[in-house]
């Protein structure tokens, strides 16, 4: 079928017709024919462009130039400049409008929704709603106008960095994959969002799957890949289902498969589910999993961009990285780079969880401070309790206390502060949190998920967990803190992959900022936050107890005695400190000491 390098739409709204648009159309056709361009430039009429008061008007694609107030006399010059020399005629262009993106950049609302722009606004199971929001226009632009190298250049210039946590330049990764010699290449979408507290990717996969799909198809074109995989964790069954529907619809509409948009480019992809292993979020472990093996990381180099899936060059990018690409193509790399900080461009989605009032997803430009995130966007601490710390970046991230609240958030600054960006999870912790308990929690998670391949991680994290457990049970020893610090250094230096290397972060950061809590547990056998069960006791306040017997009836070990309407008593020897009595008491009579 004929392939036109340019498409011209002439507005044939009654108002424009009244101003002579039919003559403009005729004149265009004649002039293009005269210059031998009739086979290259297609001219069509369209019912409405929108600025008829300035008509006649035309739109030139793929650039999107909007010419207004045209006369027949303008046409020869316009055709010569625009279609022969490729230069727009500025004096005939419509005056610049406020960009659509402006509405997102309201200074009062701190959020800027790029990746999340369609979430909650469209029906994700209907591709036409995505198209209505300018969906697949970026792909069209890329396939009809840009070479693969130009696409890579645009992504490089935007400054987009891998949103999965490593923060490597996405454009660079694509270039490296493309530059590796070979016929077969793969692209993979890492949708194995396993960080506890992170669910940004899930929201995008469920709410706007086509934005990711479009980004992947563009990436495949840029890199020269024929096949792709979306590796999605099995704990997200709805995301898997929604994405499979999106793929099916994209195939029906010819956006996946052979000769996409009538070009030589063919590409298809499938969804592959994980099976419950957190470590498969690490790229080499992910590859092993798709290949049907145990999800064990391997040393790098060689990096996947050189030797990846089935030994072929592979580019693995995060869901959010792909979701940004269509907007970067449509609005230009400068637009993206105008947001954020010097080295961290654009916006980032974060998942706010824990003790904050407005839990959920946010998307903000880099450079916003933690204080703004927690208080302005997040609404402050639940129940108006005091702020203790914020844990960022998932289980391999650190805990940052109050003195870091004014830290502008970007990749470098979070690392320098002793934490990491990770995929964007942020867990807010209030004054009633025990930081030793939190460290133990994260280390337990890492221990469970350690693949077991290398000793520093497999054995080291187990030893750390044993020590932390002893401390929270009141059996801490005087040299435990030193031992934890020593272990941390060794585990970090010698582990094979990011999971092990990051494992000590929760411990190191909590010891650094909350050393006194560790000391209280170890030396005084006290848990200042009254969380660690072995170090607290439950008592009933005789002044408040009315003898309703509710606590006694709910106690799982029957350790509460007392008669109706008489003060009740807890037997500390039998009490297991489960906290159920405190929960059910309507008089606030149960005290924790």
């Amino acid at each position, binding site marked *: 079928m004929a392939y036109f390098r340019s498409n011209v739409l002439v507005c044939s709204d009654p108002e424009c017709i009244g101003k002579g648009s039919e003559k403009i159309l005729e004149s265009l056709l004649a002039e293009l024919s005269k210059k031998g361009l009739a086979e290259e430039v297609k001219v069509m009429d369209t019912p409405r462009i929108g600025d008829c008061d300035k008509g006649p008007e035309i739109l030139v694609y793929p650039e999107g130039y909007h010419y207004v107030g045209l006369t027949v006399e303008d046409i020869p010059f316009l055709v010569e400049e625009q279609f022969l020399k490729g230069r727009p005629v500025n004096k005939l262009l419509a005056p610049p409008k406020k960009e659509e993106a402006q509405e997102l950049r309201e200074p009062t609302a701190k959020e800027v929704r790029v990746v999340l722009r369609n979430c909650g606004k469209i029906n994700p199971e209907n591709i036409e709603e995505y198209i209505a929001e300018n969906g697949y226009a970026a792909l069209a632009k890329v396939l009809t106008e840009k070479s693969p190298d130009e696409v890579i250049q645009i992504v490089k210039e935007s400054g987009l960095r891998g949103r999965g946590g490593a923060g490597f330049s996405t454009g660079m990764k694509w270039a490296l994959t493309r530059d590796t010699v070979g016929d077969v290449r793969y692209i993979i979408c890492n949708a194995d*969002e*396993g*960080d*506890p*507290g*992170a*669910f940004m990717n*899930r929201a995008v996969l469920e709410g706007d799957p086509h934005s990711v799909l479009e980004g992947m198809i563009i990436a495949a074109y840029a890199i020269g890949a024929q096949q792709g995989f979306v590796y999605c964790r*099995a*704990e*997200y*069954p709805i995301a898997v289902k929604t994405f499979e529907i999106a793929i099916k619809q994209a195939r029906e509409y010819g956006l996946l498969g052979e000769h996409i948009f009538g070009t030589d480019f063919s590409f298809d992809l499938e969804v*592959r*589910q*994980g*099976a*419950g*292993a*957190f470590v498969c979020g690490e790229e080499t472990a992910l590859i092993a*999993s*798709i*290949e*049907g*093996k*145990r*999800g064990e990381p391997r040393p790098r180099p060689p990096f996947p961009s050189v030797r990846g899936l*089935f030994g072929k060059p592979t580019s693995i990018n995060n869901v959010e990285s792909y979701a940004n690409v269509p907007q970067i193509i449509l609005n230009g790399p400068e637009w993206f780079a105008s947001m954020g900080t010097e080295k961290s461009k654009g916006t980032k989605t974060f*998942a*706010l*969880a*824990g*003790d904050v009032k407005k*839990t*959920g*997803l946010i998307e903000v430009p880099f450079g916003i401070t933690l204080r703004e995130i927690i208080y302005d966007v997040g609404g402050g601490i639940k129940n108006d309790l005091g702020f203790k710390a914020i*844990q960022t970046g998932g*289980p391999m991230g650190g805990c940052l206390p109050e003195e870091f609240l004014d830290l502008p958030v970007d990749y470098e600054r979070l690392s320098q502060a002793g934490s990491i960006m990770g995929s964007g*999870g942020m*867990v807010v*912790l209030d004054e009633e*949190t025990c930081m030793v308990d*939190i460290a133990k*929690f*994260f280390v337990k*998670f890492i221990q*469970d*998920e350690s*693949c077991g391949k290398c000793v520093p991680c497999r054995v080291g994290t187990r030893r750390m967990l044993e020590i932390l457990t002893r401390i929270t049970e009141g059996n801490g020893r005087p040299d435990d803190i030193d031992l934890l610090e020593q272990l941390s250094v060794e585990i970090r230096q010698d582990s094979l992959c990011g999971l092990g290397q990051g494992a000590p972060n929760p411990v190191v950061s909590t010891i650094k900022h909350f050393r006194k809590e560790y000391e209280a547990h170890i030396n005084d056998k006290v848990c200042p936050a009254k969380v660690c069960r072995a170090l607290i006791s439950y008592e009933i306040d005789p002044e408040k107890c009315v003898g309703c017997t509710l606590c006694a009836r709910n106690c*799982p070990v029957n350790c509460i005695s007392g008669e109706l309407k008489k003060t009740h008593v807890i037997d500390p020897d039998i009490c297991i400190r*489960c*906290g*159920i009595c405190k*929960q059910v008491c309507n008089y606030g009579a149960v005290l924790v000491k």
Partner: protein
Amino acid sequence: MTVNTKDSKDMVKTVDLIIDEFHAKKEELIPILMKVSQELGHISTPALEQISERMHIPQSQVYSVASFYRLIYTKSTGRHVIKFCESAPCHVAGGREVWNAIQKELKVKPGETSADGKWTLTTTSCLGVCAVGPVMMVDEDIYGNLRPDQLTDILGKYE
């Protein structure tokens, strides 16, 4: 132990159909194991032998892959499997109290199946709905904003 021939034939047929669905390709081993685990309840020894034979992969290797992944069950489970989120954000949102209550309600310990074979209680890592924590899944159903007093009603829905 005598194995009911009828059951065993059904098992083999189920496994074969699943393997055929994925064209017995070696790289599809994990989706195959997941599906067998879901349809049969877990990867039994006969199922493992069948997979090994059809796909020409040593049994030890099949087991090594199956046992690596948390969602592929290598031990038999109860009629219903509860997956309770044990990650920090749910823990911080009141998960501890619900966790204690559920063990009390079902009289099982984590990783175990109840005496009547109805419930297996397991923990899961983050389900990605932290903002509505504490969260658990019962089979394929997901429940958020959990409180101990809701458990009886929720669990009562399952036979």
